[in-house]
């Protein structure tokens, strides 16, 4: 599947999971996904300047009944750690985190970032899932959203190049 097809698949999975409010900061590898979200009328899309503000914006929207997600690179996830701790976790506010997994197996240039991503998620107690094939996307998104709502915590889905349909 190409990047555009994959972006549509992920966006449809988010919609089916009930997500209606998304903050994002792009990476080259998730540019198609951000574009697909931007063009989806059923989703309010907030382009961010820095990822941590997105945790705040999504928390505020959740208080009014929105179902929220953030799309970002794993470097941006690291930018969010304080807000995830003292807003999402401390107030028990769910948010679905869609994190492009730079520095994943076979990736060049980001191995340091890749090596700390899962340990930091684990340290924060944020459960995370990594679909490896496009056919796993829908089930993973729906399941992660159910888990986020039910546990009232952030839940992360790590997006790899294979799933995003982008060149290695």
């Amino acid at each position, binding site marked *: 599947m190409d990047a555009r097809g994959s972006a549509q698949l992920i966006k449809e999975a988010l919609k089916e999971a009930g997500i209606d*409010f998304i903050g994002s900061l792009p990476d080259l590898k998730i540019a198609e996904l951000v574009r697909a979200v931007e063009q989806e009328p059923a989703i*309010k899309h*907030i*382009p*961010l*300047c*820095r990822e*941590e*503000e*997105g*945790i*705040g*914006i*999504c*928390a*505020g*929207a*959740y*208080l*009014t*009944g*929105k179902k929220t997600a953030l799309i970002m690179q794993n470097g941006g996830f690291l930018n969010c750690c*304080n*807000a995830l701790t*003292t*807003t999402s976790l*401390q*107030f*028990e*506010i769910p948010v679905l985190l869609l994190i492009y997994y730079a520095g994943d197996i076979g990736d060049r240039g980001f191995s340091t970032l890749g090596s700390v991503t899962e340990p930091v998620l684990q340290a924060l107690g944020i459960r995370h899932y990594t679909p490896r094939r496009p056919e796993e996307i829908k089930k993973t998104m729906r399941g992660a959203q159910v888990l986020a*709502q*039910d546990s009232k915590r952030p839940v992360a889905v790590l997006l790899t190049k294979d799933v995003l349909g982008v060149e290695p």
Partner: protein
Amino acid sequence: MTTRYEYLEAIVPLAGDALVVATGGTIREWSALRPSDGNFKPRTLGLVSSIALGVALGLPHRKVLALDGDGAFLMNLCGLPTIAWQNPPNLIHLLFDNQCHEAAGGGVTATSTVADPVALARAAGYPHACWVRNPEELQREFAAAWKRNELSLIAAKVELGRPKNLPLLPYDEIENKYRFMRYIEATEKRAIVEPPR
């Protein structure tokens, strides 16, 4: 100079049932002046304005007030263009600038020297941003912002210090969240909190 408490007193009669997101120091003063489950106290320094933006976007027909401090404001400068880009007409952003990190021991902030928060907000794209010099001016600008229904920042230099013996908030973050959501449910007459399954 005037204290933040005196400025807050001036806007309480004008604030109606606005939803309020306020920094830690300010929320105790505000809650003493306007007790309400529609008051929310974040715990992440800087995120008052971003959380208020989320609330304002979620309830575009309700007035939302962000009560910010200079330390928090400066920490979340990158949030200003995002707020201005979304341009929520129902958000009034109030900045009480005591020029230091009062709650964190009093170290001075950049607004004590060269940084101008009103200029920063304007440059970020806020359609309205102004300084006020006394509570009467704040009342006037606040009423104008409310009526105009366009994103506005109103800033005041304030004296250090707060009234003694202000009560502590009697609940923790999770209860604050539920009270705030239940308050919205009650005033909007619709369910927000998902029942457990």
